[in-house]
């Protein structure tokens, strides 16, 4: 059982180091920012939500935006970039590269974009926990 002193010690340990580490880690790997702050359950739920949504988007034959001239494509890519290393992996392995004209593929594309946006929200939450703006 954790005593008050060990909890304080853990809290102090989590407050050391680079202040933006949970933000960057949480962006690159969904949930990692919360794991670094010892928020295991929250981190696991966030990781499951973001990775699950991204994977479902790909399974629905969703498209990964790769930029382009149109503003909507650029905005889509900005959302996809929120997935961090998942986006990089998708680009590397060619996931979501094929363009499929079915309704569920359109849903899948939106799932991938929203997964990236949700991951950004989660990473900012980890940063707020780290800075003390939100209580641990």
């Amino acid at each position: 059982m954790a005593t008050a002193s060990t909890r304080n010690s853990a809290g102090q340990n989590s407050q050391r180091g680079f202040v933006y580490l949970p933000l960057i880690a949480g962006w690159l790997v969904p949930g990692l920012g919360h794991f670094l702050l010892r928020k295991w359950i929250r981190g696991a739920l966030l990781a499951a939500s973001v990775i699950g949504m991204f994977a479902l988007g790909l399974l629905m034959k969703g498209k990964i935006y790769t930029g382009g001239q149109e503003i909507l494509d650029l905005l889509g890519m900005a959302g996809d970039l929120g997935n961090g290393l998942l986006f990089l992996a998708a680009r590397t392995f060619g996931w979501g590269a094929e363009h499929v004209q079915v309704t569920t593929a359109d849903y899948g594309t939106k799932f991938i974009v929203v997964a990236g946006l949700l991951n950004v929200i989660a990473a900012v939450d980890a940063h707020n926990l780290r800075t003390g703006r939100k209580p641990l």
Partner: protein
Amino acid sequence: MSHPSHFAAVVLFALFASTVFGITQRETSQRMFRFGAYCFALFVGSAVVLSWVMYLIAR
């Protein structure tokens, strides 16, 4: 699984988005759960209501 129904897609979307909203927008576990459930109900409920509205408009 790669071709879920429209309703299944809505429910999955609502489930994942509500989980993230609940955890990030509230501070205590109980309030996180309640806010997540509230968001989930609003997502699914609004989708059902708007679907009926579009169905009635299209008739």
